[in-house]
């Protein structure tokens, strides 16, 4: 079986024959869609932005030159910039807008377990969306896109070490929030009202 064409060869081909862009699109549409979806939190805007990413990529692909930045990183940068503009336009951030992502259970799972599990996921998604943008981006690239630290670094314009450090700090911050939330909910179920908890967040 022949090796799949490398991104660089594919881009060279597209520069000569733009109709080959369909191959780039097929290779990346799901990944870019996932990235955008988890950043904006709804399918409608994710489709709109994904469409804009590929239209922009098609228009500017002739300007892409391999200067140590892989083509995939270039594509993600386009997506990143468009998402950043989208957030600027929608300055009021959506609370828990990830409408229906992953809040599902297998048909064979117990309904009460599914409800509890969904509640946990909803909380986690909320906590992730409260993180600074670069940390959200990092988690999406690591978990959804399943990229290595080096690849994430190329996309985010940082060194591998910086990504590793940011990743660790992000996990610790989330863990602390998880621990506090667990403690607060066990206090509530035990009837203890912690000081300063009178105002609902």
């Amino acid at each position, binding site marked *: 079986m022949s090796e799949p064409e490398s991104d660089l060869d594919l881009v060279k081909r597209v520069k000569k024959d733009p109709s080959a862009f369909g191959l780039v699109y097929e290779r990346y549409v799901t990944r870019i869609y996932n990235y955008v979806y988890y950043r904006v939190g709804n399918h409608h805007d994710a489709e709109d932005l994904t469409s804009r990413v590929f239209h922009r990529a098609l228009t500017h692909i002739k300007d892409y030159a391999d200067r140590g930045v892989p083509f995939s990183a270039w594509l993600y940068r386009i997506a990143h910039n468009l998402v950043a503009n989208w957030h600027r336009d929608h300055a009021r951030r959506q609370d828990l807008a990830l409408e229906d992502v992953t809040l599902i259970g297998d048909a064979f799972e117990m309904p009460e377990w599914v409800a509890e599990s969904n509640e946990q996921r909803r909380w*986690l998604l909320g906590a992730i969306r409260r993180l600074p943008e670069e940390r959200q981006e990092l988690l999406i690239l690591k978990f959804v896109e399943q990229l290595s630290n080096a690849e994430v670094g190329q996309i985010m314009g940082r060194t591998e070490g910086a990504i590793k450090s940011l990743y660790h700090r992000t996990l610790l911050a989330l863990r602390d929030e998880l621990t506090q939330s667990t403690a607060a909910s066990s206090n509530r179920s035990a009837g203890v009202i912690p000081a300063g908890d009178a105002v609902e967040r």
Partner: protein
Amino acid sequence: MTDVERSRRLPIDEAEMEAWLAETLDLPTDMPRLLLDPQTEPLRRLLQDMRETLVPIEPSPNFVRDLGHSLTVLASQRPATFRQRYGRMIVFGLAAAGSVVSVVSVGAYWYLRREQRHSRTL
């Protein structure tokens, strides 16, 4: 995709996690099965929850097909020629330059005539 398959695909492997935990918690790196340590349980649980929550999703097939079609149409359009892209700009530019040259020529003619008349009268 099952959780097991997903975990296998993730580059965040447990060995890397163990090494990091050892470093963070200042524990010897050769400690076996650090992830089973109760001290690291919240982190292990968090990672597991994240793996189950941040899962790849599939875009709608209609969306993928329609966008693919529109890109194919766009890519198959021939790029605009130099004349199409800059033709109008060149025509307007030449017209503007011609107007300027005309005005300057009339002014120069008038000035030279006046100078000639002036020298004759002297």
